[in-house]
């Protein structure tokens, strides 16, 4: 496989269920080798649909999916042999023990007995299920089933891992272990992690894809996402008479470029309008400060956590209303 081939690539990927529901709308995405992609979005945004399309469990209504440079289809077993998957709600055949289940999974990947037996033993030990490896899975807690699903996703030593909500429902300790595992695995493998928990995505992912109502509204690095949102929010620490500062606040609030201004003791929080140059808006603010003889002790761009950036992105997308139709035509 050539070095520059993307591990996952989608073009205009669209999924419409029975002409009744648009689950995914024109998603174009590229994931290079070694990346950890966090797939985020509100409930019903199309995250699971996208993952199922990547695995060939569903067929696209339009567009295509390539994995390891080849088209993914329901019969592309050779591609799925290189993928490890954890579904959002793992299900297990009745009456099986973890050993029997992992053995079954190993056989589904075509692994010989010599390969799968030692591997399943090592995995059961790694996910701390060794002492219950002979017990029926039916009696397992949610955390234990997630750990078993995790072991199943690694039995074929995959190059690409697709994990749907891997930390969902885990206790803090198990969640921490899962995040540590993702960090370790990211050194050798490519990962796609769907999650509702943005602090998890913030911690382990190098890239993020934001879905809203089936549409990909952002795809890129996390830093870029935070930076993109951060550019409009500033904090100024001021020095001067309280009366003069209050006057500055009034002036700043009157500026057309300023969306919102708040004074907290001597700290002025300014949120700028979405359009226009930030430098020009800040020049007007500084002018007001100078006119009132108020000094600036510090100025910083107020950093937003990923969660806030994500919410703002979704809000912005929804607020665009019909304008979205125009950008779609431009993109097409």
């Amino acid at each position, binding site marked *: 496989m050539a070095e520059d081939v993307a591990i996952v690539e989608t073009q205009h990927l669209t999924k419409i269920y029975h002409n009744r529901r648009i689950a995914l709308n024109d998603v174009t995405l590229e994931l290079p080798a070694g990346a950890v992609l966090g797939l985020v979005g509100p409930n019903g945004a199309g995250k699971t649909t996208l993952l199922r399309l990547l695995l060939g469990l569903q067929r696209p209504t339009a567009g295509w999916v390539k994995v390891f440079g080849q088209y993914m289809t329901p019969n592309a*077993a050779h591609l*799925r042999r290189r993928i490890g998957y954890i579904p959002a709600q793992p*299900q297990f*055949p009745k009456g099986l023990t973890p050993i029997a289940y992992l053995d079954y999974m190993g056989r589904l990947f075509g692994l010989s007995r010599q390969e799968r037996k030692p591997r399943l033993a090592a995995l059961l030990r790694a996910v701390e299920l060794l002492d219950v490896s002979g017990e029926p899975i039916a009696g397992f807690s949610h955390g234990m089933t997630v750990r078993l*699903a995790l072991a199943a996703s690694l039995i074929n030593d995959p190059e690409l891992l697709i994990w749907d909500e891997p930390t969902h429902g885990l206790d803090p300790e198990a969640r921490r272990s899962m995040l540590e595992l993702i960090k370790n695995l990211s050194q050798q493998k490519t990962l796609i992690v769907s999650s509702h928990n943005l602090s998890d995505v913030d911690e382990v992912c190098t890239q993020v894809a934001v879905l809203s109502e089936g549409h990909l509204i952002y795809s890129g690095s996390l830093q870029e996402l935070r930076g993109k949102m951060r550019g409009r929010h500033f904090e100024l620490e001021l020095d001067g008479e309280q009366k003069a500062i209050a006057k500055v606040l009034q002036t700043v609030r009157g500026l057309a470029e300023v969306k919102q201004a708040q004074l907290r003791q001597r700290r002025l929080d300014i949120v700028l309008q979405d359009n226009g140059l930030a430098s020009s808006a800040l020049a007007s603010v500084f002018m007001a400060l100078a006119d009132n003889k108020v000094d600036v002790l510090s100025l910083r761009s107020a950093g937003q956590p990923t969660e806030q950036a994500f919410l703002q992105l979704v809000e912005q997308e929804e607020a665009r209303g019909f304008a979205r139709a125009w950008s779609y035509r431009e993109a097409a």
Partner: protein
Amino acid sequence: MVSATVSATRSVLSALRWRWLPFAAVLGMEWRQTWRSWIFRVGTLLLAALALGYVLHRAAIYHQAGIVQSASSILAELWQASLVIGPTLMIILSAGTIASERGTLADSVLSRGISRYAYFLGKWLGRLAALLGGLLLLGLLVWFLAYVLLRHEDLSFLGTLWALALLLSVLAAIATIGVFFSAICPSTALALMLAWVIVHSAGALLWLSGLTPIHPQALWTWFPFLIRGQYDAWAVVRALGWAWLIASSAALLAVVHFSRCDL
């Protein structure tokens, strides 16, 4: 030269293994899961209780009251009864083969290194093997008891085997139609309902049209003669061929659809 040949053979065997191992895994799992299912156990136990109870009842009449009971006619009656209740039982036991796992367990399997073809074939053949295996064991047990406990002068061993093969083949065709609907329907209830209606309608149509020798009336009248060894082997082979042609066609249509559909 020798080492190159050995190496090539190994790589061919390895390629074959990874192609067949997933299929064999699904086949084995389906076989085990069918035997473990309570509906299969209840159905089989009920059939066994009815069949064995009937044979023992007739044996009691023969031994206690001295009224002669012929094994061939008892077996023919049992085989005929299987024709009446067998189709419904087969549909109940096969309609959930794929539909019951859609979107849940099937995800865990089909997201691994297995194609839809291998998955379908494994599920179909595994379910068929479990159902027919259970019925074959029961049929042989009933035959043995009838042979031991009843008058068996007119009982033909080969004829009984032909009759059993014919019965099982017809039931296999019906079970395959159940699996077909299971593969194309989103829910077990819908698959069950459609399969039941289609199988019974098709049975009536075949009977009225006389197109094939495997309609219910023909088999009903045929069984007593078969069991006594009064049969035309070619006609039996033709009937078996029809049954398996229907089964294969249903399976082929189902696999073509299933290999392209969403889960």
